[in-house]
């Protein structure tokens, strides 16, 4: 009211500056309203931009990756000629093993010729070019079959063979007749043959389980590459992370939240944890290389080393979320436990920890999901650059034998020159994202289902 009393006494109320009615908008009001609308529009535009980015990302991944789950196969009847595979005819497995994959080439050529003749396809291609539409993996596949079933020699057996990467690309629309002009791996005549075989139903595109369960393949055979073995590598790394990061993280959080006195040591630990959470992941890779590999001589490329590095990286995440869930347990629980004679340790371990468990679990799953997608540190400890071709058989093998991990495998494929590997990389991302979405959904469900509001 002081403002009013200071105004000159007796002065008549000022008329409206711009005159006119309140209901009529002055230019200034209009300007202000327009700027309000503009401001709001910026906000909507920003959100829309973010969501559109997400949409583009998801459609790109799905659009380019689903192809990897399908593969072109050629169904052929192959006569396993005795004079080629077992010249002595005594079915001695050692003799059969002596025939290299090279020795199987004529059989495959003959099978292709037979198929062409059977469906009455006219082609000027030589037998070698006929077999060129099949994957380079076929001979090895055939040899494995013969060694496993020597009694089938001399019979005619029906096989489903992988088509070569170029043929597969043609069936999926990635390779066109224009794009192969300078390609020495495939010719237009071979594509004519592919069309004819597809029309005859010999060559078809079906679901490819091998991509999900199989091993990586060399540069020349993109059609045979799968992500299964590196998935196991990731699994073993996650086991290490879970076995180390969860107990250590929970123990550290219990100390900091329930027992730590306010002193310089506690402060130092807390500052360290919050800083470690923001250290770039590649720095953890350098640490792993310097300490675990150079100093301790643990094997390069081993999931154990990857797991150790990822443990150090995930610990801050787990500690931060565990502390939050310990903090959310009300002090009355502790007081009640102490009141009936429990020791401090008993109050924490018997009452606070079980009540905080859902929150801890949620945080752990989110930490694991983060570790699962991490790539940069794995590059430094050597989990790329080779072909992870054998699935580990024992636990020790799984931890110590060289392997890749899903994100490292995807990076490896993205580096290769053949576009057929890019499709594999996008497909691998779909699988990786399925894992991450599952884990995050699980975390959300756990939180919804068990979280208590006090």
């Amino acid at each position, binding site marked *: 009211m002081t403002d009013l009393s200071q105004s000159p006494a007796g002065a008549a109320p000022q008329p409206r500056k711009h005159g006119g009615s309140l209901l009529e908008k002055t230019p200034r009001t209009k300007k*202000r309203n327009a*700027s*309000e609308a503009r401001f*709001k529009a*910026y*906000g909507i535009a*920003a*959100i829309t*931009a*973010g*969501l559109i*980015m*997400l949409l583009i*990302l998801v459609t*790109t*991944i799905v659009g*380019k990756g689903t192809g990897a789950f399908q593969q072109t196969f050629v169904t052929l009847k192959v006569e396993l000629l005795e004079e080629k595979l077992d010249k002595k005819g005594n079915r001695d497995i050692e003799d059969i093993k002596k025939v290299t994959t090279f020795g199987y080439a004529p059989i495959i050529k003959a099978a292709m010729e037979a198929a062409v003749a059977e469906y009455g396809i006219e082609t000027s291609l030589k037998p070698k070019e006929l077999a060129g539409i099949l994957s380079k993996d076929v001979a090895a596949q055939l040899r494995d079959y013969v060694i496993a079933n020597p009694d089938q020699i001399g019979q005619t057996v029906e096989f489903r063979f992988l088509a070569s990467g170029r043929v597969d690309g043609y069936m999926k629309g990635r390779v066109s007749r224009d794009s192969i002009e300078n390609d020495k791996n495939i010719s237009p005549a071979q594509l004519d043959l592919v069309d004819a075989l597809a029309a005859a139903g010999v060559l078809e595109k079906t679901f490819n389980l091998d991509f999900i369960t199989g091993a990586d393949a060399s540069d020349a055979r993109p059609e045979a590459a799968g992500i299964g073995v590196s998935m196991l590598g990731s699994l073993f790394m996650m086991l290490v992370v879970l076995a180390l990061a969860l107990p*250590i993280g929970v*123990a*550290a959080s*219990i*100390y900091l939240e329930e*027992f730590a006195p306010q002193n310089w040591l506690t402060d130092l*630990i807390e500052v*360290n944890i*919050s*800083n470690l959470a*923001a*250290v*770039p*992941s*590649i*720095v*953890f890779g*350098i*640490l792993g290389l*310097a*300490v675990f590999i150079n*100093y301790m*001589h643990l094997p390069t490329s081993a999931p154990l080393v990857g797991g150790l590095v990822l443990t150090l990286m995930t*610990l801050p995440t787990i500690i931060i979320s565990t502390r939050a869930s310990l903090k959310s347990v009300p002090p009355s629980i502790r007081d009640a436990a102490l009141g009936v004679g429990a020791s401090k*340790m008993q109050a924490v371990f018997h009452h606070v920890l079980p009540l905080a468990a859902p929150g801890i679990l949620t945080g752990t799953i989110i930490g694991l999901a983060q570790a699962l*997608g991490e*790539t*940069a540190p794995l*590059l*430094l400890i*050597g989990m*790329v*650059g080779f072909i992870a071709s054998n699935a580990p058989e024992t636990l020790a093998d799984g931890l110590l034998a060289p392997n890749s991990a899903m*994100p490292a495998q*995807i*990076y490896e494929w*993205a580096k290769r020159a053949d576009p057929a590997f890019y499709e594999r*990389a*996008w497909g691998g*991302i779909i699988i*990786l*994202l399925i894992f*991450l979405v599952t884990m995050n959904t699980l975390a959300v469900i756990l939180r919804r289902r068990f979280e208590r509001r006090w």
Partner: protein
Amino acid sequence: MPTFWLVALLLALAAVGFYGGRRRAVVSAGGDVKKLHSLPAYYGYHVSLAAFVPAVGALAIWLLAQPMFIETRVSGMIPAEAVPETSTLGLVMSDVRRVAEGLDLAVEQGLLTPKEARNAIAGEQDLRGLMGEVGVALGDSVRPEVLSAAQAYRNLSNTSRTIMTAVVALLAFGGFFWAYARTHKDFRARNVVERAVLALLILAASLAILTTVGIVLSMLFETRNFFGLHSWTDFFFGSTWAPNFRGDSELSILPLLWGTLYISFIALLVAVPVGLFAAIYLSEYASGAVRSFAKPLLEILAGIPTIVYGLFALLTVGPALANLFAKGGLLGVEWMAGATSVLTAGLVMGIMLIPFVSSLSDDIINAVPQAMRDGSLGLGATKSETVRQVVMPAALPGIVGAVLLAASRAIGETMIVVMGAGAIAKFSINPLDSMTTITTRIVSQLTGDTDFASPETLVAFALGLTLFVLTLGLNVLALYIVRKYREQYE
């Protein structure tokens, strides 16, 4: 795997200790649990912990210290003249390790008797062929001093292993019987166990310090080696990055730093406006329904692994930009040489940082007291005027902190720049040029065949240390600003 069996033995001993200790306590009380000082299980825990923890601790320390000890002993045995001109002690040592490993494998597979392995003399047998047979590839034939060093290495490791097993077993059984003997109905088992558990908790918490120390020490050590081989003035103030494996490389951080900062700047140019406006809209304008729909969707962007963004940059954004700006592109200009460029990496990194900026700013804007908004609105300001003139100035320090955190993320980001930015180190202001960053160079210098005695490899540690200091500085500054700002309104 003897270590594995040792751990299994310790676990078994701990399990036996639990039941034994508990039983002994109950028996000493004549079967009446009420006469015990602590609950029966505590007597069991007491014996298990005493048998397990000191032994495992000794095992871990031994395994950590053993390589260092043996390395120094064995490398002291190699005379300086045995190291060829073109090689270094480190390389000779790795040969020694490989030969030792080969001998171990040969003994394991029965190609050599342990005695033959101990007494093998270089030149007498084809050791290289033998090593090849067991899967250890050697560059050239085994030289006598390498072989004798390898035999010493094997001897020392074997002795060390035997002593380790003895020490660990002694500690385990000693702890077991000591604790078992102390178990009595009047023994304060709970207090002892709780003190031990507290010590373990403190140990777990100190691991964070240990990790930081490990990071700093490992990088400092190798960085010192690097500066012993390469002048620090060239590293910090030179102008060219040209690693050359024949030696005399120019390794300057400045072009890399320029690429890093340029890409981060573009990323922030994308992320800050979008993220900030999204946060403002979500916290000031959006209805509950929009908020609960848009916020989690935006945050999905933060949960996508960086390899996905990297692939997106390499295979989608890069080619799309090349379609516009490269030779034969839609715009008919030739500003871009390939698909990798600063803009490619910067744009994609910007997308990645949007949720980071928006959720941090959202928290900060929400922390501005409602009374300030109400005051402004009550005076007749529109909502946008309130945001611009009241909320933003109040939230500014916090938002600056958030941007600094985002910048530190951008500087340390690896996969996007490895796949999207290119490999050419240069100073250029054209955002369509391919440039390289600190993190990409770390990856390329440390992958593949690395020789830890050449400056070209060691420079990665100096780069890593610089990166660590840079991001740490930004984080500390940002956290300081954010914390200071929070206190203002609490």
